[in-house]
């Protein structure tokens, strides 16, 4: 059973004048226990909003418009290492719980959500990979997180756990008494990971973990994330615009555009077998250091205005392959493997490789055409 099941989730922002901005719309995906799922897309695609909405951390004008975030864990049976329940019992009668025990996080009130944060789902916010508090000892910062989120823990026990955690991420136990400036670059990021793992969460959300870092420090962060995946059995949700970072860290990915999920699949499916015109365009425009590239192809046009999106595929105005029905309605996710029959059914949640494109049955052909410059140029001419 999945750890997290996001079902038709829509998130909007109220703005002063004009209709609400549809930052995330009808998004579906699952995160399995222990796996790393990546949400990739450009600025404004809704990836960060989606991450924040899972923990009810949206800005004041943001709200979940519809959909559910089913989570397996906000229940007493989710026990810690000693068999004790990790949470004070959330009054599950008040909340919609499915027959399989999954609970909808969007329905939790403030105090119950506080129990979920850090204990169940920890967040590593954007920019924090290099930002420990300079005036507290590193160990004390971990102790604080433990004692706030697990009030019953004694100071001594919390200190012991902090040292255990540092050891697990590869930092000597006694470095807990150091301040952040006494840590090397690589150790700081490992300490941030230890901080996120303070309450042994089942899942960690990392928002742009490497953005704005220099390349050698980024390399250390990627190394630390890899070690974390090996050492802890928590699932991860990584949010980033950088497809190379995603390719190195994720088991499965979702590609977002204009608030919608355009394609989902394993990293190999997405990178070796991209099956959505937006993914194809994104890969064309991404420079790599490994090989000589004759000419990068950009995607003409600009992302859609999400306050008044037209009734059409979000990508249609920039898509060289858009035709007929693409301009009537945004497509659901279709199974890629099913080939031409795929479009008869909407993909079921178990299906790994899916693409929101009405022409997914012709994808081989589109993939070839997408490598040619004139394919993309014609959009500028026709629209």
């Amino acid at each position: 059973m999945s750890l997290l099941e996001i079902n038709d989730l829509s998130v909007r922002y109220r703005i002063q004048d004009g209709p609400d901005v549809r930052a995330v719309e009808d998004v579906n995906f699952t995160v399995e226990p222990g796996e790393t799922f990546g949400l990739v897309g450009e600025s404004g695609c809704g990836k960060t909003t989606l991450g924040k909405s899972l923990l009810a951390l949206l800005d004041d004008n943001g709200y979940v418009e519809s959909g559910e975030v089913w989570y397996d864990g906000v229940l007493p049976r989710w026990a810690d290492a000693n068999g004790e329940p990790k949470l004070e019992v959330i009054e599950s009668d008040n909340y919609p719980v499915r027959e399989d025990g999954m609970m909808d996080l969007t329905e939790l009130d403030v105090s119950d959500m506080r129990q979920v944060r850090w204990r169940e789902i920890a967040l590593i916010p954007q920019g924090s990979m290099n930002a420990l508090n300079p005036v507290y000892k590193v160990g004390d910062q971990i102790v604080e997180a433990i004692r706030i989120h697990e009030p019953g823990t004694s100071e001594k026990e919390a200190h012991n756990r902090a040292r255990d955690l540092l050891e697990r991420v590869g930092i000597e136990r006694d470095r807990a008494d150091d301040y952040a400036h006494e840590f090397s670059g690589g150790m700081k990021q490992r300490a941030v990971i230890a901080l996120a793992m303070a309450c042994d969460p089942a899942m960690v959300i990392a928002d742009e973990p490497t953005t704005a870092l220099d390349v050698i420090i980024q390399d250390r962060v990627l190394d630390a994330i890899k070690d974390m995946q090996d050492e802890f059995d928590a699932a991860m949700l990584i949010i980033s615009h950088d497809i190379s970072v995603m390719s190195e860290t994720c088991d499965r990915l979702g590609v977002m555009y204009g608030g919608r999920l355009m394609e989902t699949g394993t990293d190999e499916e997405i990178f070796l077998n991209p099956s959505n015109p937006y993914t194809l365009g994104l890969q064309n425009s991404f420079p790599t250091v490994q090989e000589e590239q004759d000419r990068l192809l950009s995607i003409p046009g600009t992302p859609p205005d999400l306050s008044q999106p037209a009734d059409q595929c979000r990508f249609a105005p920039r898509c060289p392959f858009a035709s007929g029905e693409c301009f009537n309605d945004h497509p659901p996710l279709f199974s890629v493997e099913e080939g031409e029959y795929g479009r008869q059914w909407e993909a079921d949640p178990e299906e790994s490789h899916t693409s929101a494109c009405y022409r997914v049955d012709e994808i081989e052909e589109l993939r070839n055409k997408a490598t040619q410059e004139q394919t993309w140029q014609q959009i500028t001419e026709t629209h």
Partner: protein
Amino acid sequence: MATDNGDPLIEVRGVSKYFDQTVGVTDRILRRDPQPVRAVENVSLTIDRGDIIGIAGESGCGKTTLGNMLVKLYPPTEGEIIFDGQRLSEMSRSDEREFRKRVQMIFQDPFESLNPRMTVLDSVAEPLKINDMGETYQQRRDRAIEVLNDVGLSPAEQFLDQYPGELSGGERQRVAIARALVVDPDFIVADEPVSMLDVSIRASVLNLMRDLQDEYDLTYLFVSHDLALIRYMTDETGIMYLGDIVEYGDTTQIVENPQHPYTEALFDAVPVVDPQHERRRANVAGEIPSPRNPPSGCKFHPRCPEVIPPDSWTGDQDAYRRFVMFQSGLEEREIGPGSLEGLEVDLESDEAVRMILERELALDVPQEHRLDDESPEAGVEVDRLSLPPEATETLRGAARDALQENYEAALDRFGEEYRSICASEHPGFRTAAGRQTACHLYDGQPDESLTTATSSADD
């Protein structure tokens, strides 16, 4: 490449830039000499007409400072920059007016580099007015329209009356490019021109810059931290570290076969978009030291995986690397009683010395570059390292001194015997694999001539 077959447009000769040279209050009280930030130190390079030269490196390496000096935003502290045969420092007022026309800059952030209260037309026509180009408003307007069409904002008439706030990031950067091009310059410095733009938009701005190069007969200096962009855009590249250019030459060659250990680490660190590929990680320990007090000799030597042992060293190179790292840790005052804080151990005991060596001789690098049984948490067994007995004694003594915070005594123990050439002499440029590398690993006399490289693009 040593032969000068190009047509130099810009020559940079031994240029340094120090910031913060004045004596502050604290310095005066403590009777200290000011320690300036050495942003750029003794850099020389030649840029030929029609070249696209890249400058790459991590933040703080001096790449932006170098670019800013080339457009005369501020003068170098030392050295000379020569533009088309003329020294920047000796320009008359009218020479400078001419220079400001011929040299332009494209800034990083199109959200900040355009005046939000000026329309596109005003922004693009302003440089013409300032430079007394175009007699009438109509002439300036026509020129602005021509350039806007060239940068892909067509039909330009649609954009003329718009304000930057109404444009997307990609469109704004095109306006900024148009503003640079409108005076028909010869040389453009582009400092991270696409780093604020989304990936799908980036490519079009990069392609535009390449296409305009032919059309306007431009020479570019392209400054970026993004090595993939450097590879895509430039003919030749200089890699900078702490104010020095450490390697300079043909971009493709540098990417595919880096010579300087820092360049190699930099490219190793770039993630790859290939789920089936296992990448080698960067083998660099520690962090970039302060540019106020950079290491002696080769500035990279305390972090360098290939630091060269002197002839008197009878151990192996791996042990020597750790030995050098320990020494620079003492210089930075990073090793001392603080390293053992929280441990119940007598600071004067042999146990404390053993622990500090185990800990501080361990490499903080990705696992593939460590010894089998070594880890940052457990440290490294000193006996397993191939250290000469005298070196071990030096380390023990220095560790004992450091535990008493007696750093001068600790450093005195190191003497000259085990001093690496990397620490004692700054490596000048020398030719390795057909390009210029500032590294003692390569034979040959440092190249004293100030010309470092010339174009190979149109050979």
